């Protein structure tokens, strides 16, 4: 579909699919960092998330099954990819993710060191 020329590939050298950075929200609570990413058409098996040296990468391949002869197309197969710098102090073992309605909810729990804590002040 010639429409894919509008979505250009910035990093994809080996991949034949155009690469697209998904739209994201980043929220923070006292316990975790929450990343929401729009990944319409992506299923859990096509999603890869990894955290390495303070860099979080979200990658997902989306393939649309052809419904027939295309009369007009504004979106197609593509590779979602986005990188975030993540502050130190994320408990990598407890990272969890859910994919609902094409939106990824990625929970990055803060390790105890990063959680805000009350410091007792003793009268000295």
């Amino acid at each position: 579909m010639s429409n894919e020329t509008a979505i250009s590939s910035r990093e994809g050298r080996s991949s034949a699919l155009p690469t697209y950075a998904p739209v994201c929200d980043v929220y923070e609570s006292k316990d975790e960092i929450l990343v929401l990413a729009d990944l319409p058409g992506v299923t859990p098996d096509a999603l890869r998330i990894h955290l390495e040296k303070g860099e979080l990468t979200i990658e997902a391949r989306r393939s649309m099954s052809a419904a027939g002869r295309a009369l007009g197309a504004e979106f197609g197969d593509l590779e979602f990819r986005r990188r975030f710098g993540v502050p130190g102090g994320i408990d990598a073992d407890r990272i969890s993710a859910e994919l609902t309605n094409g939106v990824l909810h990625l929970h990055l729990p803060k390790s105890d060191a990063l959680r805000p804590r009350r410091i007792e002040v003793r009268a000295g």
Partner: protein
Amino acid sequence: MTTRWTTDRARRAFSDFDEMFSSLEAFRQLMDRAYDDGARAERGAVGSWPRANLADSGTALVLTAEVPGLSDKDVNITLNQDVLTVSGERKTSVPEGYTAYRQERGSIKFSRSFSLPCRVDGEKATAAVKNGILTVTLEKVPDAVPRQIAVTG
């Protein structure tokens, strides 16, 4: 604004838009690269969300659209003669107890209309949302289904 897709005009219409958008896209990428680490905020122009495809399966017209964050009950679909309208609202809000560090996924109230290239049977239309993709299947009226005409010699 009604999107009109017909078999003979589709390719020409889209190539015009391709050229316009690819130069805008290149400019926007330069802007984004200067702004942050290369991650891009996608905020389409009003009237272009959600992105949609229209296909002809022979017996039906199939409209698919990217609607991340929406489920069946969030989308309204109406068919009026040969105009299909998809509307609804995608709400995003800061979750309780969190502060927003970055928000690119906006709340959008949308309504897009598509002019269909042939007549369809409204009684037999079906629609479903799965994994953030809306699929509307519109069976054509019998007259609109292509048919072979036997040539007798």
